[in-house]
């Protein structure tokens, strides 16, 4: 089966004063249709860069990024993005935010309202549909951002440390909710996190990255069944995989000598 997302020899450099800085050096990776892939790695290893290239917000310096076999040429509503900083439009209500993408797609008002309300319901914000973002907690803001992405029904969901700024309890709630939705209507998910537990709990495959230059260090399969439960989170197999990922994240050999 051909991959949904494919990175081929992708390099990203940024010009510096008198050198170039290699943010990402030679990354190749295939992500299957409806697969849930998590990316972990030290900060600055190019995780956001990787994601932004699929989103069409950053262009690779060389190599190609394709979605459904076609090179990414810019952003589009087929790929939803969820940012760590929520990025809600503060002058719009929750419903206004969720309808934003639907308006751009010229969805008629009644249909738009129905789809927005459905997405808002899905993330548990029904009571806050008319609230402004400034009145919401961090967790509720991120729920709203997730609803906004769901509303346009993208095939690919790109999430850049979406739960990184939330407290532990809210984070677990949102993880479970995300998995619930994903098991119901499977999309391809690329999920970036710095939390190893989160990566293993959510993903079918964990990509461990290394820094300087940013590259893929290891890809680890998570052979745990869905739906993921509390039981699985506490199982010996979960612990084994988590330790494996942990080891590769925090005991990376210096650049060049890595396998």
């Amino acid at each position, binding site marked *: 089966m051909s991959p949904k997302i494919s990175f081929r020899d992708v390099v990203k450099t940024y010009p510096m004063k008198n050198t170039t800085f290699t943010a990402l050096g030679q990354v190749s990776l295939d992500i299957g249709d409806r697969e849930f892939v998590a990316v972990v790695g030290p900060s600055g290893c190019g995780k956001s860069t990787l994601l932004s290239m699929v989103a069409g*917000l950053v262009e690779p310096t060389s190599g190609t990024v394709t979605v459904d076999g076609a090179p990414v040429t810019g952003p589009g509503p087929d790929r939803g993005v969820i*940012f760590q900083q929520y990025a809600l*439009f503060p*002058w719009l209500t929750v419903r206004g935010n969720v309808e934003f993408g639907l308006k*751009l*797609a010229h969805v008629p008002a009644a249909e738009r309202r129905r789809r927005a309300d459905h997405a808002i319901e899905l993330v548990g914000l029904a009571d806050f549909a008319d609230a402004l973002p*400034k009145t919401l907690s961090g967790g509720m803001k991120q729920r709203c951002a997730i609803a906004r992405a769901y509303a*346009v029904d993208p095939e690919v969901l790109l999430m850049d440390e979406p739960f990184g700024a939330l407290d532990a309890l809210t984070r677990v709630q949102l993880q479970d909710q995300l998995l619930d939705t994903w098991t119901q209507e499977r999309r391809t998910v690329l999920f970036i996190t710095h939390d190893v537990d989160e990566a293993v709990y959510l993903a079918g495959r964990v990509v461990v990255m290394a820094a300087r230059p940013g590259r893929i260090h290891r890809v680890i399969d998570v052979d745990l069944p869905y739906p993921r439960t509390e039981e699985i989170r506490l199982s010996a197999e979960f612990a084994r995989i988590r330790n494996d990922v942990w080891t590769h994240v925090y005991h990376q050999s210096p650049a060049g000598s890595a396998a």
Partner: protein
Amino acid sequence: MSSRARELLSDGTLTEDALASLQRVLLGFALGTLVAVPVGFLMGWYPVARGLLEPYVQFFRTIPPLALIPLVIVLMGIGETPKIFVIFLAAFMSCVVAAFQGVTGVDRTLIDAARVLGASDRTVFLKVVIPASTPFILVGMRIGLGAAWATVVAAEMIGAQKGLGFEMVHAQTYYDVPTIFVGLISIGVIGLVMDRLLLLAERRLTAWQERR
């Protein structure tokens, strides 16, 4: 002094003067804002426009509008045009910088968030950049209105038949201190009321802002 105020009110002079001054300010201010907002947006959005215009704006901003009065009188005479022009400049300079900073200060991730939902450059500008920079523009308008009001009074001292500034200079030649005071207080009260009105508008239009 209060008896002088009552006299000036009952014979209509005070109202007439205040209206004359207000009319000049509002006209100059409206024109200044109307031109400043698109120019500021242009500078913030297109690097070319910024490169072309910013040096001039930054330079002229350092000249107090009042300092231009001699030049403006030479070029435009002593009718209404030079007065309104100077007020226009005062309002324009405050507002153009605010609009420009509003655009350049828009949160990058908000723009990205709109683009990934399918927004074109045009839509990003209309639906993100404009609302996001509204708070800056309103602050600029308030500063601009203050500057315009300060300028009109001074401009009227140079040659006018009516206006609060004119009335005060006129009173000065007769050592008419009460009239001068009535003028000063009127200027203060009207300035304060206008500022409060704009502040109110600002609060209502930007109620969505998170205030820290």
